[in-house]
């Protein structure tokens, strides 16, 4: 069953216990509220995108999920267990890289994994080799971490998250510093993790990446949840009708359409009109223009990218969507 299917089944059943449940999660650092009343549920086998501009509270939230940061209010529950009372029962089933992967520069990649494996306990030696192979570091396993490129550090970080065979994987900007081929490998790896039954929380500002691999997303701004839901549903909310008419008819067409019931907004962009209207209104729009003797060259449905939706919500500019030219 696909990840989408598992998620749908879990939601439809209504009985599935969320792998991760955040309720009213709040963190204040002095006068600054980094995260405010955050509610989230992550279900088994889903890849969940966690978006927000820099300083939105993503890393603070992940820090609270990992017990590194004490919430000012609210609860973190994972696998049905309260983190504050069952820290190790929760964390031993969680793999995470928070922001830049931090390892020991004087140790080799293999020894860094061994140090973590010793701390966790019960990790067989062959698991280290498997993971080094998986992330393409087998050839450099004996080299010191301090000699690694940023991309190699990220790969080692991903390997470290999988050491203890976690059920919940938290990845904070996992493709940061990777070359395009490396980014693609990680994008391909994430659905594989979900296919193995793991739940993945992917915090990223690479919205194209998130749109490709995540079933659901949450968008955080200034510590508050501003949107959450299935990716396609969120994108559907931003659907608009695009009307192309002859340039000399543009003003008149705008005037006609702005008076049309059901049209919430009319905006000019690149010589076209973008209507804030339901897709079903296309026929009515066409008819209204034709009655006034204006015949549209094109009338089509335009769907937001996740980046456009994100920018609309957060008002952020230049947030680095690296979507390739289409």
């Amino acid at each position: 069953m696909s990840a989408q299917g598992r998620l749908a089944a879990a939601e439809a059943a209504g009985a599935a216990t969320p792998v991760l449940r955040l309720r009213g999660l709040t963190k204040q650092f002095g006068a600054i509220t980094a995260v405010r009343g955050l509610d989230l549920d992550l279900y088994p086998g889903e890849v969940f995108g966690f978006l927000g501009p820099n300083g939105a509270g993503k890393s603070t939230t992940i820090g609270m999920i990992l017990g590194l940061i004490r919430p000012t209010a609210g609860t973190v529950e994972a696998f049905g267990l309260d983190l504050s009372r069952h820290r190790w029962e929760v964390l031993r089933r969680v793999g995470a890289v928070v922001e830049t992967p931090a390892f020991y520069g004087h140790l080799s990649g293999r020894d860094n994994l061994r140090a973590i494996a010793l701390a966790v306990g019960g990790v067989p030696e062959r698991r280290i080799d498997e993971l080094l192979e998986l992330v393409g570091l087998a050839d450099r396993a004996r080299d010191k971490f301090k000699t690694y490129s940023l991309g190699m550090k990220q790969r080692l970080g991903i390997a470290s998250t999988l050491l203890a065979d976690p059920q919940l994987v938290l990845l904070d900007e996992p493709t940061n510093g990777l070359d395009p081929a490396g980014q693609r490998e990680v994008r391909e790896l994430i659905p594989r993790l979900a296919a193995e039954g793991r739940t993945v929380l992917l915090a990223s500002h690479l919205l194209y990446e998130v749109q490709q691999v995540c079933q659901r997303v949450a968008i955080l701004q200034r510590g508050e949840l501003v949107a959450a839901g299935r990716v396609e549903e969120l994108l559907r909310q931003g659907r608009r009708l695009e009307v192309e008419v002859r340039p000399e008819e543009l003003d008149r067409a705008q005037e006609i359409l702005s008076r049309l019931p059901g049209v919430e907004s009319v905006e000019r962009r690149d010589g076209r009109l973008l209507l804030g209207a339901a897709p079903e209104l296309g026929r009515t729009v066409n008819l209204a223009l034709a009655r006034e003797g204006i015949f549209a060259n094109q009338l089509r449905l335009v769907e937001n990218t996740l980046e456009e939706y994100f920018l609309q919500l957060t008002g952020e500019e230049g947030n680095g969507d690296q979507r390739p030219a289409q």
Partner: protein
Amino acid sequence: MINALRSDAFRQWKRLMPKVLLGILLGSVVLFYLLLWATVQTAGGQTDATGVEDLRASLRVENVIPFSAGLIAQFGTILAIIMAGSSTGGEYGSGTVRTMVVRTRARWHFVAAKLVNGVLFAFLLVLLGMLAGLAVSAAISSSLDGNYDAVLRAGFAGDLVAAVVRTTWVMVPYVAAAVFLGVWGRSSAVAIGLPLGIFVVELIASSVLQAVGGVFEDVTKAFPSVNLSAVLAANGQIQGSSTSQPSDDLPSAWQGAAVLGAYALAAVVLVFYLFQRRDITAEG
């Protein structure tokens, strides 16, 4: 807890630092003995004969326990502070505290491992330093008259073990302080600099206050360095040793050990409290 200890020991022992610090201590002990021996040999009868004889006697194998222990307590404490401080503060500097804390069974295991491994390293410094002192002093005794009766007697091994334990014990408060300050300051510089500063300044301050006398002298009895001397003085109270008797002004060895223990306990309580309560963010 064992997992956290094993992981921390693995990480620390893979560093160059512990080996370098051990090398410095062993080299210092050997060098110190040899320099003094050379001084004794060249001084001959030219200087104060009693002073030279006392020095010669200190270098003999029967005095290895008090003499080496005194030497190691000074050098070793500095090295143990450097090791514990860099081990703890370095975790914040590199951000690895976040990586490791989420992988430890309980949060406090992380600092407990730092404390235990810091004390174990101090123990290793003392043990190997004493063995090095034993070897050099045996060689010196051999060159004098080949008399090893003092170390061949029954009970010497027990005295040596007791001295190793006492000398390690006097380092424990400084190791605990280095770990606490590493967590508090989130940096190696603070973790090493402050305890070393305290170690040196307090030695000077206690000397000055003792010279002033009166109530000021009484105050020094609470100082770690004075209690350190009190504990180490017990190393000289063994059969065959010809070192001078401890000053009456010093507290008893047990009192000294208790005061040092109280300092260590205070640092341990503080570090556990702080580490349990404080957030670990990207900035540390």
